[in-house]
């Protein structure tokens, strides 16, 4: 009867590689294709408050998509706000993230303009943001 023998260094390297791959995918996690498509189609946009909103006609799919992502964002904002030194409030962290998320929109995507509060299509020019934004 033969027994499987593991080479210690090989085993360690394999486990290490698996762990690294796990971290790699977590850090490089990209947008869900449905979300990516909705953003590019201008069906969802970045709001001033740090959450996503539905632009135009609402559908059950869009509501589910946006609702799901906003719940995740809120949980993340809450956690990060508490960890900040000194701790910040959820609203403070969310508003700051909103500033940055609007800045990161690419041409063609929708965002909520500061001066009009209306959905606006991002152009190559700088977005219309809150004057407090960094």
């Amino acid at each position, binding site marked *: 009867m033969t027994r499987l023998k593991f080479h210690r260094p090989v085993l360690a390297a394999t486990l290490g590689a698996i762990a690294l791959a796990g971290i790699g995918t977590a850090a490089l996690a*990209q*947008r*869900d294709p449905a979300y990516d498509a909705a953003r590019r189609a201008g069906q969802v946009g970045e709001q001033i*408050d740090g959450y996503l909103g539905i632009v135009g006609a609402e559908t059950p799919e869009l509501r589910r998509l946006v609702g799901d992502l906003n719940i995740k964002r809120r949980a993340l904002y809450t956690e990060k706000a508490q960890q900040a030194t000194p701790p*910040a409030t959820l*609203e403070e962290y969310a*508003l700051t*993230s909103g500033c940055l998320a609007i800045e990161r929109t690419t041409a063609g995507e929708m965002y909520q303009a500061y001066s009009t509060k209306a959905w606006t299509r991002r152009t190559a020019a700088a977005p219309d943001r809150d004057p*407090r934004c960094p």
Partner: protein
Amino acid sequence: MMHVKLTSRADPAHSVPMLRTKRVLAGAMLMAGLFALPGCITVNAPEDAIVIELNINITQEVIYRLAADAEDTIEENADIF
């Protein structure tokens, strides 16, 4: 056996007819109330959603302090941003 009685007994419950002026006044008030009633239910909800500005008291200083951290958070969670 002695009966004990109060020196002055309370008046029994009774009703006094309303004065004419009071009756007119009461009637007027009732009519005014009835006319005012439909006015109470004509308040319509605004068509647009009411947006409560909770961000008004957040200072620029706080936003600047959190910006670097928020930038990292967005990059580390690119799937939801």
